[in-house]
């Protein structure tokens, strides 16, 4: 596998984590423009743990996941009574505030003659964990894909549990959920927290893979892209966001010949796709119909 293909695939897998975190928020009926914040937190925590304190990758991933989840819970606690547009804008503010704050924090360090540490707009460089542990690009690709598959399996299992069904109910009609004894706010808090954990984990891998991170990488475009992948892919199953990522990055790579007019074609394509499939390709309805068919055949 060539280096180019491997690193493209790794990027696809890394963005998939972010798309899955956007998916978890969308399941409870909220739109978040701020998932990139938790991604960034995961990335910076891992960078700090591995590059400055020389911590083990397992510890770094664990701490990043926790930090992402806690930050998401903090945001959720602040804005839990908001919904829809208000929630979307509040999450956007949160993410932009975090990014602007990261731009202002300058604690440059020198470790083994290499500059590292948070350095405002210059970013956090020399996150050398993959070099120190002799990870090839393909090795890292395997690690990322295995983590992603594990997460997907977990979500697939989760999909048929009562918790998930209730969460979907909250997303569809929170008034109905309330009258059935489901507390919408609890589910929303929990799922936003979970989404932060997923994003934090993805951000951790992102920092390790890129070896250099800077606040500009975590702009609003990243978050909105993740959201767009999920909506194109559909909210029916955890595979939806992955399909969205595949369509975008797959198409971007395949029509690179038209590179100058790429976004012109792609933007129009997404809009047309949404006219044909307003609920995304794997909409909850399509997934339920599919499940029904598979079950009938079993009987």
């Amino acid at each position, binding site marked *: 596998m060539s280096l180019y293909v491997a690193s493209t695939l790794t990027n696809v897998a890394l963005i998939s984590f972010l798309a899955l975190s956007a998916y978890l928020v969308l399941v409870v009926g909220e739109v978040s423009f701020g998932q990139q914040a938790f991604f960034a937190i995961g990335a910076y925590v891992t960078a700090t743990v591995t590059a400055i304190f020389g911590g083990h990758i397992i510890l770094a991933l664990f701490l990043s996941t926790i930090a992402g989840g806690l930050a998401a819970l903090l945001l959720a606690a602040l804005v839990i009574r908001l*919904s829809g547009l208000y929630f979307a804008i509040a999450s956007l503010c949160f993410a932009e505030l975090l990014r602007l704050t990261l731009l202002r924090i300058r604690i440059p360090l020198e470790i083994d003659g290499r500059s590292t540490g948070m350095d405002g707009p210059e970013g956090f460089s020399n996150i050398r964990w993959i070099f120190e542990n002799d990870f090839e690009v393909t090795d890292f690709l395997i690690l990322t894909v295995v983590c992603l598959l594990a997460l997907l399996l977990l979500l697939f299992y989760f999909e048929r549990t009562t918790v998930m069904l209730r969460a979907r109910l909250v997303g569809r009609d929170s008034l109905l959920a309330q009258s059935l004894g489901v507390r919408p706010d609890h589910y929303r808090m929990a799922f936003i927290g979970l989404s932060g954990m997923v994003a934090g984990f993805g951000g951790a891998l992102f920092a390790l893979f890129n070896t250099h991170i800077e606040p500009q990488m975590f702009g609003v475009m990243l978050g909105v892209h993740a959201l767009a992948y999920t909506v194109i892919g559909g909210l029916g199953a955890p595979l939806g966001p992955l399909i969205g990522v595949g369509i975008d990055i797959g198409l971007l790579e395949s029509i690179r010949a038209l590179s*100058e007019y790429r976004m012109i074609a792609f933007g129009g394509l997404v809009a047309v796709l949404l006219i044909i499939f307003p609920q995304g390709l794997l909409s909850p309805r399509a997934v339920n119909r599919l499940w029904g068919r598979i079950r009938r055949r079993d009987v």
Partner: protein
Amino acid sequence: MDFLQTSIDGLLFGSAYALLALGFSLIFGIMKRINLAYGSSLLFGGALAVWLEPIIGWGAVGVFLVTVLGAAFAGIYVERLCFSPHLGKTGVMASMIASFAIWMQLDEISSQLLPHRTHSFAGIDIEAVSFSGIILRGDQILHFWVAVVAIGALYWTLYRTRFGLLLRASADDPDTAYLLGGKVARLGMATFGLAGVLGGIAAFLILSSDGQITPHFGLWSTFKGLIAMMLGGVGSLPGAIVGGLLLGFAEAHVTFYLGAEFRDILTFGLLLLILVLRPGGLLGEAIYRTGRLAAERI
């Protein structure tokens, strides 16, 4: 004296923000949708004007006309492609994402129209006025009055014409408006066109007082318009004006006293604070409290 000077500068600049926010508010009020491609359609107008300037001539007047018409045209295009196919209750998300996709598209088209990234934008030279120590830039005073006239014309359209009546009725309740014989089918297009005209005027004011246009203008104006609208109150026209002026005022003061790098931190911080403490914005709380928007998850 510094305080007064900064306040006046801020308020003059804020009048352009108010126009941007009015465009957002109009669309939100009528369609209950958020148009992420708004800033890019204004950028498209501006870029088209710069591109056509050598062909048309006419100087600043030609640039103004093309900016406004281009923005209105782009607005209608966005409505046809992203909003009219998703009118149902489930279409909120789809229309938002579709408008994001068209945002990317319009940004790219504008970048193609502006090959050198930064292009000069026609301005109007008027001498600065100064009295008792306060300096007022001539073009900014003109801009302020243009904004006032545009807002006045908008209010006149909304409150003194049949078309305005129909728009307001449809904003209240589209079904009732339709049952009472209102022709609501093309209303979305008209709203987007109107918002495009307002935004195009704002874009011309901002770009000509900067003297240049870059492809970043799309993202920038979407953010500023959205923030000014949310500050004042979603869907409320007076709220949009207050929000725009307040944003200009706050930005000018923060830039003056703390430095430009704190400007955006304060803007977003202020907005988050207002959303947490007073979700409906400064003047729009009633809209949120009635619960209709909250129940419809918009």
